[in-house]
């Protein structure tokens, strides 16, 4: 696994690494090109990361015994964040850090016994970066799921006295609870007598989903508001019938427009085309 170039490092003292800095970086660049292509990241950024990492590593190696310095930790965190945001995997990130070991191995002329400390240090660096990578990704996931919750309960006033609630995505228990709560409070706040629950964005309706909808409608009815369920696709209607789901006590319409037309009828509104 030796590279074509002859080993040029005769000891692993920080001073030697420093004097051979440019050659080490060249070997590293070649190694990465061969074994870890990262098209997602600009090669200049990779170059900067390599330089920074090698310098911080050299500095850390100067401490006795070699341990991770604060600068090294910061650099690895930044590197992991960069990789995570560009969609690289944790193992790619770790492999990038571990590759420093191979670079030094290729460049070093001595026996492998002296590599022991370096192995330990570099491995710890890799594991640390994996932790930072996953931490960052979990942060992104948490933020996205919070955004999803915020987005999932939009109650939109459609007309004076008519609210609409476009439900998008699967209706599980916790979402159904949130939707019911939001809808009832909006009904009370705005004094709306009609609410249109549009389920065109709900992929499938099973018995549980239908139960949630029926509960929402029942609670709104207790408050004096009537609900119309719209956006039931023919395929979903068929599934509901075959599941024995009966929504006959609830007004249902094909489209949101038909639902609005129903509410207008109940409110005694007539829509007239002008001109």
């Amino acid at each position: 696994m030796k590279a074509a170039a002859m080993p040029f490092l005769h000891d692993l003292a920080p001073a030697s690494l420093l004097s051979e800095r440019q050659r080490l970086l060249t070997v590293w660049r070649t190694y990465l090109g061969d074994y870890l292509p990262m098209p997602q990241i600009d090669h200049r950024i990779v170059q900067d990361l390599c330089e920074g990492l090698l310098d911080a590593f050299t500095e850390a190696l100067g401490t006795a015994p070699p341990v991770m310095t604060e600068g090294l930790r910061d650099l690895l965190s930044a590197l992991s964040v960069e990789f995570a945001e560009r969609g690289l995997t944790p193992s790619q990130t770790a492999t990038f850090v571990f590759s420093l070991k191979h670079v030094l191995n290729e460049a070093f002329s001595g026996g492998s016994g002296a590599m022991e400390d370096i192995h330990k240090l570099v491995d710890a660096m890799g594991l640390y970066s994996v932790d930072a990578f996953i931490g960052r990704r979990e942060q992104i996931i948490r933020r996205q799921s919070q955004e999803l919750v915020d987005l999932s309960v939009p109650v939109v006033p459609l007309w004076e006295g008519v609210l609409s609630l476009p439900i998008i995505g699967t209706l599980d228990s916790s979402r159904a609870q949130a939707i019911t709560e939001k809808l009832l409070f909006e009904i009370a706040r705005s004094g709306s007598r009609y609410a249109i629950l549009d389920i065109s964005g709900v992929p499938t309706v099973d018995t549980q989903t239908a139960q949630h909808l029926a509960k929402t409608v029942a609670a709104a009815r207790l408050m004096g508001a009537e609900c119309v369920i719209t956006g039931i696709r023919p395929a979903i209607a068929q599934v509901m019938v075959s599941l024995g789901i009966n929504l006959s006590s609830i007004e249902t319409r094909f489209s949101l427009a038909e639902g609005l037309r129903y509410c207008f009828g109940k409110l005694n509104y007539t829509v007239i085309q002008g001109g």
Partner: protein
Amino acid sequence: MTAATPPSAHIIPLDGILVVTLPPLLGDSDAEHLAEQVGERLVAEQAHAVLIDMAQMRMIDSHMGRVLNVMASMIRMLGAETMVAGLRPEVAMTMVELGMDLGGIRAALSVRHGLADLRARAGRSE
């Protein structure tokens, strides 16, 4: 000198409609008396509808639910209509979770909505 008792319901006749305002919490004995009181006032005022204002009620249990159902049946027998008004969202949700319903008693968003509704219906039926 009487001991402090929880406030009971207020009954106000308003153009042939009895508005019954329930307190935040209604004791069991008060609840039992309620139907009796409402029935007597209904006949005395010759009212055609009873509007039960529940906006202040913070909770409703199955006992209260039964009381309301019994009262609505009695009112129907006396030839009048019952409507509840102003149920809070959390009360409505609790009732649904407990599997309670009001057996087809009509509901209104508020006393104002309920009065308008009952008057419109009375106007139509005359």
